[in-house]
């Protein structure tokens, strides 16, 4: 038992610092992916509830593809595909050096795309929960299309979509573990290295699981606070 505390600690021979840096990578990757996924997801949802069939078709194709592919495969396709694509592009421009794609950016992009396709469904059902009268009320007092969206619909939309988005955040947090497969030094990668070096696999992977669990619990506190805050600005019932 004492040995395992030493292994996990920050002292000499302890893997604490490298695991802590892994936590930082995981959290920053998830936080960086979130806005990307939310913005794309919002616009895809807008497209899905459009009255124009071609917009709807394009948006539905997006979600069908990215919800049907395994996240790991999406990650590999983005990572290797972008590498090959950019290399070919550079070759056309006359550059022959070796180009490495940043695995953080690739992970952010792939996870953002997956997140957005699920988020679009959440936004879509939230859109459907807002009665038409809200739009009409907005137009009646002379707000433009964009203003109605920003000042009338969006505040309600966010409140309705929050529980679904909170769920997706938890999934995103777990999905970040996949980037260890393309070499990003996140929690799982760092604990994996420690496990291989020290041969205490159960200890280190168990620690990784516990860290993810703590991150999930911490985020549920934050989400609760946000939900309370959002409910405060809503109509009192």
């Amino acid at each position, binding site marked *: 038992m004492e040995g395992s505390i030493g292994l996990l600690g920050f002292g000499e021979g302890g893997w604490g610092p490298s695991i802590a840096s892994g936590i930082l990578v995981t959290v920053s990757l998830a936080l960086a992916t979130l806005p990307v996924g939310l913005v794309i997801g919002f616009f895809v949802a807008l497209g899905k509830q459009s009255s124009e069939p*071609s917009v709807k078709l394009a948006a539905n194709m997006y979600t069908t593809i990215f919800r049907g592919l395994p996240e790991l495969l999406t990650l590999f396709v983005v990572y290797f595909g972008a590498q090959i694509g950019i290399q070919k592009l550079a070759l056309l421009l006359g550059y022959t050096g070796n180009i490495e794609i940043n695995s953080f950016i690739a992970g952010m992009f792939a996870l953002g795309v997956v997140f957005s396709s699920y988020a679009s469904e959440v936004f879509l059902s939230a859109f459907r929960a807002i009665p038409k009268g809200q739009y009409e009320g907005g137009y009646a007092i002379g707000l433009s299309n964009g203003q109605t969206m920003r000042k009338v619909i969006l505040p309600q939309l966010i409140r309705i979509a929050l529980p679904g988005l909170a769920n997706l955040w938890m999934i995103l947090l777990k*999905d970040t573990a996949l980037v260890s497969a393309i070499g990003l030094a996140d929690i799982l990668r760092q604990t994996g290295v420690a496990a291989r070096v020290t041969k205490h696999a159960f200890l280190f992977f168990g620690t*990784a*699981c516990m860290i993810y669990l703590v991150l999930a619990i911490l985020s549920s506190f934050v989400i609760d606070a946000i939900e309370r805050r959002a409910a405060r600005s809503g109509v009192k019932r």
Partner: protein
Amino acid sequence: MTESYLNARTPTTLRPPAPPKRWTKPRVIGHVLVGIWAALIIGLLFYLYTAWNPELIQKYGPTYWSGLKTTIGLVGSSIILGALISIPVALGRMSKNWFASSVAYAYVYFFRGTPLIAQVFLIYYGVGSFKTQLEAVGLWVFFREAWYCALVSFALNTAAYQAEILRGAIRSVSLGQWEGAASLGISKFVTFWKVILPQALIVALRPYGNEVILMIKGSAIVALITVYDLMGYTRLAYSRTFDFQAYLWAAIIYLILVEILRHIWDWMERRITRHLIR
């Protein structure tokens, strides 16, 4: 005469309504977006056509097929095993017994709160730490195989999700159904089996379908622990040939698999909710 005729033409004649705009902004955007998708798909087909290599297909095609069979076998057996484990877990979650419900809650929280890939690694690499104990019980042969480790971790993981689905579905059936059956003198077990469960399963069908699809997608990670499923053979083919089409073919196969499942589920839902359509 002419004057009165002119007067008769009142200035209030309305202009005919403007013809509907043919190319509104959303329409243009939509066509551009569909055009981009079409271009991407045609580009993909063109790439696969030019990169078509009979030698490669002959060599790796059969491996993809066997990988697909491994994927389906692994997911199918872990879903069934998980369904069996989920029953006591769901019962524990609904139990009034403090101990049983907290144990079940902890189980569900752990498996839903940690990444599946971390669980797979924990079991696959972690069992090595207990080699001597496992050898003593005779389970080492079982855990030595990556496939069985994947099966165990998948089954435990999906059991947690399925338990929540089951619990939610049983809760969704109103209490009046229990009371109605009780007033007819039907025993609790028969009530559950013949009254509650059929109604609960209608509610649970869609989440179960989502869970199966999530498992199919999630099963790709077993490639990282040396199980040769579809993803595993894809990685193998890519690492040997550095031909990007390896990944594209896998993407197409996964997409088709998921779409087939989705349509089967839509069909099943239509079939079992026939009596609800008025």
